[in-house]
């Protein structure tokens, strides 16, 4: 059994980390921190987990050494005290955006402040197993992934890999996302009478995850637009790509199969009939699966590529545990093989 502690455990990602790790066959959850709820029972923040453990939140300075530290702090916090976390554990997984990008100047451009620990950037591996498995397996420090970025990357990666994407035109990705993405902090934007039934273009241009998609796909022309729609969990990336050469359905089946052969958490969804012909986050709630697929417009050669995930799972906590399994040599599926809840 390995000892894992969670830093910043009172948020939604913290809750999912606990939900998975408390049931993980090879993990013992040692501590979970929260400054705000220090001393309180963990189920004060995670009512659905009542009775699963007798953990209480501890303040950060009470953290003891352990095998793996999973950081679930707001952006900008992890990089300020990374040296301290590194003294407490040999392996660190940071779910925030602090160590996702390799280039500090790119970080500053997108996040608006200079990176606080640029020397650490090269020591972190980008934590997307489907693209980075070997590097993660051998890494001590792994970053999390942006949920919108992951849905977009997994949707389009097979087309990039098959050399179908015209790098000049690149991709237009419109990502529709649920409210839990914005986290636990309540405010005017998350007030139910305003948020319910709204179709809100909260980041039509300039969304930070653009840099992550550019880095992961090695593609400059990434045109990302974010729209908030009514759901709590769920992301659907709808990506428009104009292929360089004529493509057929069979070419696309081959591209997606080859890209994701043997992947434990990626499913190809491309049906002719039925309610769920294309990926829909509706069937992924609480699961670590990513459903990918496409639609081909034969008249114009436009490929519409889809990527659907649960933003709190494959978009954050589930993906972090998938990386932990790889780093610790466990079965990559350990603690993560639950299917989505449906209907919900």
């Amino acid at each position, binding site marked *: 059994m390995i000892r894992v502690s969670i830093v910043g455990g009172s948020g939604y990602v913290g809750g999912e980390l606990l939900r998975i790790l408390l049931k993980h066959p090879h993990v013992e959850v040692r501590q979970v921190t929260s400054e705000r709820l220090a001393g309180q029972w963990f189920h004060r923040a995670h009512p659905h987990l009542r009775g699963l453990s007798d953990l209480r939140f501890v303040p950060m300075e009470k953290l003891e050494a352990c095998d793996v530290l999973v950081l679930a702090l707001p952006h900008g916090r992890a990089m300020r005290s990374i040296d301290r976390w590194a003294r407490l554990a040999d392996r660190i997984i940071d779910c925030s955006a602090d160590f996702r990008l390799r280039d500090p100047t790119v970080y500053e451009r997108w996040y608006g402040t200079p990176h606080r620990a640029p020397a650490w950037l090269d020591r972190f591996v980008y934590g997307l197993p489907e693209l980075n498995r070997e590097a993660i397996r051998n890494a001590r420090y792994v970053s999390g992934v*942006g*949920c*919108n970025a992951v849905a977009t990357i997994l949707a389009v990666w097979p087309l990039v890999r098959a050399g179908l994407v015209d790098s000049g035109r690149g991709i237009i990705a419109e990502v529709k996302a649920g409210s839990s*993405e*914005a986290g636990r*902090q309540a405010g005017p*934007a998350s007030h139910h009478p305003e948020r319910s039934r709204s179709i809100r273009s909260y980041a039509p241009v300039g969304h930070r995850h653009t840099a992550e998609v550019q880095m992961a796909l090695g593609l400059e022309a990434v045109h990302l637009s974010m729209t908030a729609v009514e759901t709590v969990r769920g992301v659907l990336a709808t990506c428009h790509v104009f292929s360089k050469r004529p493509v057929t359905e069979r070419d696309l089946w081959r591209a997606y199969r080859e890209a994701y052969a043997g992947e434990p958490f990626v499913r190809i969804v491309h049906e002719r009939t039925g309610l769920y012909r294309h990926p829909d986050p509706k069937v992924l709630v609480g699961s670590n699966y990513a459903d990918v697929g496409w639609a081909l417009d034969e008249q114009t050669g436009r490929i519409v590529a889809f990527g659907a995930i649960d933003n709190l799972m494959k978009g954050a906590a589930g993906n972090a545990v998938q990386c932990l399994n790889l780093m610790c040599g466990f079965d990559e599926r350990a603690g993560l093989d639950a299917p989505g809840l449906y209907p919900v």
Partner: protein
Amino acid sequence: MTAVCPECEGPIRLAEDLMEGEIIPCGDCGAELEVLSVTPLKLGLAPEVQEDWGE
């Protein structure tokens, strides 16, 4: 008295007793405009507070 918004060129209706330093929101684009001077009339963009809605 009307002026033109420096940001979006929209029309701005101004009160007769306009004072220097007053902040006037543009009706079209919502820009907060500061009255830099009354005669001659000069409007400039007032510093903004950025809203952040999470991820």
